[in-house]
């Protein structure tokens, strides 16, 4: 029924890598200057692994998520870098090729707070229309029975009753809508899933269920998943790896246990410290200063500026141990220890 187009470029597939992002830059052109929303982010994820991206508001997480699917909209533009999935650089494809990659190879689970479903279309049609637009010409159209089967299968996989197919989005609860979004995102068995705050605005119990569903499907597909979020607790439970973003740059990335137990970058340190715990009742510690304004951000260490220091030299991206990298700025490295 559904057909997949594997983009093969003739290059040798980078073995086992789900997604490899190299020096990705997203810039916004404003009359006051260039805003570097994503300023040279690099990371890679093996097939089947889960990575979370965390950071304060304005750190560039969502912009990055959109860029991975090449959904960046004017006045933003992708200013450089590579996004390699299955040996193919997404940023190298033309419009139509990229369109075919979406949903097929890389799929989006939109924010939980968003109204990501078309209010005037029935659920079943929204599940099917992505599939229709990805068929190779020459394929037969699906028959009525096939349609019903596919829709039912997708709904059941996310724990929804088949009757949901005939409903409209406004008849569903927030959790149900997100499940539909997950069903859509997994309908073509993509290699990479980008989940942009999928459970924000849902209540805690529903959050857990939705994340469990997402995780189950991702495991079943052996897909790589990039989870954008700011809920550290969720991140800790769900992911294998975590990347911390600040001012459009990745400051630390590593296995979730290590990063949480012994963070190496001062910003991560402060972030972890600011989390309330059930055991230790202590003062709330925030992070001093305000998040950086991304307009005309100076070269060098962004975090130093936050704590009113300065290091204008380019900061090296240093490997601390296996799979664990940080922005190594000697100037502020020991802050908050």
């Amino acid at each position, binding site marked *: 029924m559904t057909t997949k187009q594997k983009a093969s470029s003739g290059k040798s597939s980078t073995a086992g890598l789900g997604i490899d992002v190299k020096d990705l830059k997203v810039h916004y052109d404003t009359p006051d200057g260039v805003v570097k929303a994503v300023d040279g982010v690099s990371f890679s994820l093996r097939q089947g692994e889960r990575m979370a991206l965390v950071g304060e508001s304005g750190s560039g997480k969502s912009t990055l998520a*959109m860029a991975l*699917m090449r*959904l960046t909209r004017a006045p933003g533009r992708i200013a450089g870098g590579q996004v390699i999935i299955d040996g193919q650089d997404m940023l190298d494809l033309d419009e139509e090729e990229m*369109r*075919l*990659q*979406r*949903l*097929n190879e890389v*799929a*989006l689970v*939109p*924010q939980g707070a*968003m*109204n*990501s*479903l*078309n*209010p*005037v*279309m029935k659920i079943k049609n929204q599940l099917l*229309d*992505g599939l229709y*637009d*990805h068929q190779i010409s020459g394929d037969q159209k699906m028959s009525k029975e096939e349609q019903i089967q596919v829709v039912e299968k997708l709904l059941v996989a996310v724990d929804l009753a088949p009757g949901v197919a005939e409903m*409209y989005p*406004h008849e569903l609860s927030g959790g149900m809508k997100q499940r539909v*979004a997950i069903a*859509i995102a997994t309908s073509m068995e993509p290699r990479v899933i980008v989940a942009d705050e999928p459970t924000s605005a849902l209540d805690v119990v529903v959050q857990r269920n939705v994340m469990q569903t997402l995780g189950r499907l991702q495991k079943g597909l052996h897909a790589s998943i990039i989870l954008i979020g700011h809920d550290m607790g969720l991140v800790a439970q769900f992911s294998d790896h975590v990347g911390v973003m600040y001012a459009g740059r990745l400051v630390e990335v590593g296995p979730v246990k290590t990063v949480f137990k012994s963070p190496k970058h001062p910003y991560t340190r402060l972030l972890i410290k600011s989390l309330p715990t059930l055991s230790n009742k202590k003062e709330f510690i925030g992070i001093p200063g305000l998040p950086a304004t991304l307009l005309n951000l100076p070269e060098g260490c962004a975090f130093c500026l936050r704590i009113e220091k300065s290091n204008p030299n380019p900061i090296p991206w240093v490997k601390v141990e296996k799979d664990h990298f940080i922005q190594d700025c000697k100037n502020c490295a020991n802050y908050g220890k």
Partner: protein
Amino acid sequence: MSFRNIVAAVYTNYIFRRFLFFLLIIWIASTAIFLIPRLSGQDPVKEKLLLEAQRGGHMQAGLEEMAATYSKKFGLDKPLLVQYGNYMADLLRFDFGPSIAYFPKSVNSLIGDSVIWTFGLLAVCTFIAFFVGTVAGALLGWPKSPNFLQYIFMPILTLAAIPYYLLALVLIYIFAFNLDWFPLFGGYSVATLPRWELSFTIDVIHHAILPAASIVLASLGFWALGMRGMMVTNQGEDFMIAAEAKGLRSIRLFFNYAVRNAVLPQTTALALSLGTVFTGSVLVEVIFRYPGLGNTLYQAIKLNDFFVIRGMIFIVIVTLGLATFIIDVTYPLLDPRVSYKRGG
């Protein structure tokens, strides 16, 4: 089912509520028409009748007779409520009384024919303008449309600002007076009699082109602008971004996602704009001496024929209310979020 339940069930029905609204409009309008003349304490209608009688030039006897009948029904010696009661009773029977200027012809006979001409003209014009304008607006608001469309449509959009009758004057001067392509006035050629024949129909269409053009060209821009605005707003909506993320084809995004949603407020705007369209067309009819409601109204105003004016206004309001009601009632078919039952 108890009486309360029945009332509740009926009231929550959308159609019923819109119908109530329709009745409300008619009631408020007719009451306003009743009250406004009486605000000054005198009854201007009676004054006017006597004034016309004094001026002569109309049938004396008829006027005095009319004044007498009028006093019996609406005389100021009667309590206001009784006057109001008589007034409403007459209205509901569509009895507008006799025309003052053309006594003893009844108001109805004067209005009767005009309604068809105006209705025909406006229905066709609104339909064309709405359809073409919405399509144009949809294309203009879609980022993937070719650029040259912007250049074609900008001048048309600016026309939207100009009232219909200004455009009518210009069109008459250029196309009827100078170029002589179209007749200068009338609904059909002078000294011909209306009949159901092809030649007459062509004559009617020939006469209708300039008035129709004024209305269509001047209102097109409004629809286009509205639709364009809606399309642009929709572009930024969450579901559009999510739909793009699904890798859907442009055409599907355009029709099923953008247009399908933008059309909803357009339809609401259509319902609200019917009054404006009518208002604009009144002077167009006057300028072209088109035999419709607008022209009849104009003549009635000149002749101070108050009964005709009142009757016409009532008819117009009923028609507009009805049209609005019909559009309101079909709206839930377009928008699944609005249901025929409240809370359903």
